[in-house]
C-alpha cells in the first residue's frame, strides 16, 4: 500500500491477548523468528507505544493492511489459523501488503474466471490501481504466500484462477513460507539490508569461499573442490547437477600425515543475541579415528588476535552420505567459527572430511533430525493409511515423542503427506508429569536449499494441552502413554508405549513435497523439536509505564513527562509537542475521550445526539414560525383598526 503513513517502525510492538490458543502463541513466536531471520522486521512485546498490533482469537484469520495508526490494531489468529504461513500472511497484511493477485498487472499473469466465482464474492478479485498499491519493481509472483489458491471463492468445482503459465497452476496459494519475492518486496518496503538474526551462509560456489580463511598454524589446508577421491563424488548444494559448479571444502586425510590438522575459519561475525546455531552438511570419508572439531575464535580488547574456544567434536562416523549437523553456540563477542580437521591415525589412502552449505544464524537449533531415505520412492510406493514412524526422541525435559508420517496420506487424503506427533513412554520411565503439560512439538520438512534465508520449509506444530480430553472419553489425550497408548515392539526388540497422535492429514501435498529442495539426494529431512511453552499460559504483561509515540526508525524510551499524567480506562500517555496527553482506547463502536479518557462515547450516543440536535432545530424553527405568524397577525389587525375599513362578504 502506497503511503509512508502505513509503515510500522521496523520493530513492531505486539500484544498477545489472553484468548489466543497456546499453540497459536507458540507458532506466532516462530513466525516472528522467520521475520527476524529473513528480514529486518523485528517484534517486541508492547511496552506502551502509541500503535501496536493486538493479536487475538477472532472467528477467523484476518488483519488490516498497513499501520492504520489507531493505537490498538487488531489481527486475528482464530481456530485453524495457527499455521506459521497463515500467521506470516496476516502479518504481511499488517505490514502493508495486499494479496498478490490484486496487483494492477494481475491480468497479464492470471485469468480470473468470473463465471466460476460465488455470487457476491466478485469484489474479492478487484485490483488496485498502481497509484494505490505498488509492486515495488518485483515481478508478479506465483510463489507468493500472499496469493489466492486457484480455487478461492469458487462456486463449483472449477478453479477461479487460471495461470497464464500452466506450470504455475498448482503453485499459487502456497502456505509454506515466504517466497523470495515476498522477502524482496518486504525488504524493499522497509529498506532492510540484512536479516536481524542472520550471520553467514556459504555454499562454496564462489572462489572467495565467502571470506573464509585457512588456519596459519596447521599443517594442511581445506581445498575447494567439486569432487574428492574416496568421496564425495559431488557437492551437496547442487548434487553435481550443473557442470562447472558444485563446490565444497575438503580436507584430504588420505594424503595427510598422522597428527596433521587443517583449520578453516569463517569470516568475522558480530552477534547480538548471545546464542547461535551453526548448521552444515558434512561428508566423512576419512579414517574412523579422524575428527572434525568445532571451535569459536572470540575477539575482545584482551584478545585482539582472538582466543580459541572449543565447542564440540562432530560425531559423524564415516558414511557414504552428506550428513546434516547442528551445533549450538553461545557467543557474545565478535567471533569466527573454526572448523578443525585432524588426521589422527591410519585410514584409507583416499578420502577425507568435507563441508558444504554452512549456515550460521542467531536462532535455536532444531533438536532432532529424522532422515527418510529414498523419499520419492517411499511416497510413491506406500499405500494410503500406512504409517512410517520416526525413532523416539527424548527432549531435554525428559519427555519422549515420535512422529508418524503417512507418506501417501490417510483418512481420504491420498496424494498428501500426513503427519502426527505422539508421546512415548517406556516401562521404567519416571519423573514426568502426566498429562504432559504444554509442550509444543514441531514437525518441519526441511527445504534443503543451501541458503537458510531462501528456504521454504514446511512445518506444523501441536501442543500438549494437559486438560484436553480424548474424543468420547474421560481420559486425558496427553496422559501417560502407558495409560492411554498402545504397546509397540520395534524390529530390534525395543518395547515402548505410544500415545495417541495429534496432527494433520494435509501436512503437504506430494506435488509440493517434490518441489524445491524438500528431497535432495533422494532423501527428505524432518527437523523435530519439543519446546516448553508453559510460559505462554500466563498473560502478556500490560505496560506499567507509558512511552513516547514510536518513530519510523526506532522504538522509544520511557518518558518522564508522562509520569504524572494519569490516563483512565486503558488510555496510554504519549508526549505530543512536548506535553503529555492521553491516547484513549477505542473499539469498533465505542471510544473513550476527555483529558484522561474519563468519558465514554459510542455510536449509539452519537445517534442519540444527532436525533436530539435535529429535534431541537425542528422545535426552534417551529417556535420561530409560530411567533412570526402571531406578530404578523397582530400587526395586520392593528392596521385594519386604524383605517376603519369594515370587512364584509361582498359576493354572498
Amino acid at each position, binding site marked *: 500500500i502506497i503511503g509512508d503513513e502505513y509503515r510500522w517502525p521496523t520493530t513492531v510492538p505486539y500484544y498477545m491477548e489472553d484468548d489466543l490458543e497456546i499453540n497459536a502463541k507458540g507458532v506466532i513466536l516462530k513466525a516472528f523468528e522467520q521475520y527476524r531471520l529473513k528480514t529486518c522486521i523485528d517484534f517486541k512485546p508492547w511496552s506502551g507505544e502509541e500503535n501496536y498490533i493486538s493479536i487475538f482469537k477472532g*472467528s*477467523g*484469520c*484476518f*488483519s*488490516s*493492511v498497513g499501520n*492504520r495508526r*489507531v493505537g490498538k490494531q*487488531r489481527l486475528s489468529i*482464530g*481456530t*485453524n*489459523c495457527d499455521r506459521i504461513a*497463515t500467521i506470516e*500472511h*496476516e502479518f504481511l*497484511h499488517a505490514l502493508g501488503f*495486499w*494479496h498478490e493477485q*490484486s496487483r494492477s498487472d494481475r491480468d497479464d499473469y492470471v485469468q480470473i474466471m468470473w463465471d466460476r466465482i460465488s455470487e457476491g464474492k466478485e*469484489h*474479492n478479485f*478487484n485490483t488496485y490501481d498502481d497509484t*494505490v498499491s505498488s509492486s515495488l519493481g518485483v515481478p508478479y509472483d506465483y510463489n507468493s504466500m500472499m496469493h*489466492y*489458491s486457484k480455487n*478461492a*471463492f469458487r462456486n463449483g468445482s472449477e478453479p477461479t484462477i487460471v495461470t497464464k503459465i500452466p506450470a504455475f497452476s498448482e503453485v499459487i*496459494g502456497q*502456505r509454506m513460507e515466504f517466497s523470495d519475492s515476498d522477502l524482496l518486496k518486504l525488504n524493499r518496503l522497509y529498506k532492510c539490508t540484512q536479516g536481524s538474526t542472520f550471520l553467514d551462509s556459504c555454499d562454496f560456489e564462489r572462489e572467495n569461499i565467502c571470506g573464509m580463511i585457512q588456519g596459519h598454524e596447521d599443517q594442511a589446508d581445506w581445498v575447494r573442490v567439486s569432487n574428492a577421491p574416496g568421496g564425495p563424488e559431488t557437492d551437496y548444494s547442487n548434487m553435481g547437477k550443473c557442470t562447472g559448479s558444485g563446490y565444497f571444502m575438503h580436507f584430504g586425510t588420505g594424503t595427510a600425515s598422522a597428527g596433521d590438522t587443517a583449520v578453516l575459519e569463517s569470516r568475522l561475525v558480530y552477534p547480538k543475541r548471545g546464542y547461535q546455531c551453526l548448521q552444515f552438511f558434512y561428508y566423512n570419508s576419512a579414517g574412523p579415528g579422524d575428527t572434525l572439531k568445532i571451535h569459536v575464535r572470540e575477539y575482545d580488547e584482551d584478545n585482539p588476535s582472538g582466543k580459541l574456544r572449543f565447542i564440540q567434536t562432530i560425531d559423524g562416523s564415516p558414511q557414504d552420505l552428506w550428513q546434516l549437523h547442528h551445533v549450538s553456540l553461545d557467543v557474545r563477542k565478535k567471533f569466527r567459527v573454526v572448523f578443525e580437521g585432524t588426521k589422527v591415525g591410519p585410514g584409507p589412502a583416499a578420502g577425507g572430511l568435507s563441508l558444504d552449505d554452512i549456515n550460521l544464524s542467531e536462532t535455536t537449533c532444531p533438536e532432532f533430525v529424522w532422515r527418510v531415505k529414498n523419499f520419492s520412492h517411499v511416497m510413491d510406493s506406500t499405500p494410503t493409511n500406512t504409517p512410517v514412524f520416526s525413532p523416539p526422541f527424548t527432549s531435554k525435559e525428559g519427555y519422549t515423542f515420535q512422529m508418524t508420517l503417512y507418506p501417501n496420506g490417510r*483418512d481420504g*487424503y491420498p496424494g498428501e503427506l500426513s503427519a*502426527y506427533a505422539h508421546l512415548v513412554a517406556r516401562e521404567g520411565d519416571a519423573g514426568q508429569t502426566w498429562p504432559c503439560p504444554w509442550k509444543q512439538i514441531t514437525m518441519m520438512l526441511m527445504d534443503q536449499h543451501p541458503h537458510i534465508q531462501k528456504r521454504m520449509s514446511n512445518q*506444523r506444530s*501441536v501442543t500438549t494441552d494437559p486438560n484436553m480430553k*480424548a*474424543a468420547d*472419553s474421560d*481420559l486425558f*489425550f496427553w496422559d501417560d502413554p*502407558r*495409560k*492411554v*497408548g*498402545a*504397546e509397540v515392539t520395534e524390529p530390534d526388540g525395543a518395547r515402548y*508405549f505410544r*500415545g*495417541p*497422535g*495429534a*496432527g*494433520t*492429514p*494435509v501436512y503437504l501435498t506430494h506435488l509440493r513435497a517434490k518441489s524445491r529442495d524438500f528431497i535432495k539426494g533422494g532423501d527428505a529431512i524432518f527437523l523435530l523439536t519439543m519446546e516448553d511453552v508453559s510460559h505462554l499460559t500466563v498473560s502478556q504483561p500490560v505496560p506499567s509505564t507509558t512511552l513516547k509515540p514510536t518513530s519510523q526508525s526506532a522504538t522509544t524510551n520511557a518518558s518522564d513527562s508522562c509520569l504524572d499524567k494519569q490516563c483512565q480506562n486503558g488510555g496510554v500517555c504519549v508526549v505530543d509537542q512536548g506535553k503529555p496527553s492521553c491516547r484513549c482506547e477505542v473499539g469498533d463502536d465505542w471510544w473513550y475521550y476527555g483529558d484522561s479518557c474519563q468519558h465514554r462515547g459510542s455510536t449509539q450516543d452519537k445517534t442519540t445526539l444527532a436525533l436530539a440536535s435535529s429535534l431541537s432545530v425542528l422545535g426552534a424553527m417551529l417556535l420561530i414560525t409560530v411567533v412570526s405568524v402571531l406578530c404578523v397577525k397582530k400587526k395586520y389587525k392593528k392596521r385594519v383598526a386604524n383605517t376603519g375599513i369594515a370587512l364584509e362578504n361582498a359576493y354572498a
Partner: protein
Amino acid sequence: LPTAKILDFDVDGGLDLDIFDINEEAGLNLIEGDIVLDETQTRNS
C-alpha cells in the same frame, strides 16, 4: 493396563482449509477474504 486405543486427533478438523475457507466458514465477509478495512478505506473502496 492400557485402555482401548484412543483415536488420533486431527488439528485441522478433518478439512483442508485455506485462510479464505476458514473465514467463509466463520461467516466473515471480509475484503479479499481476510482484510479488515477501516472507514477511510471503505469509502475509497
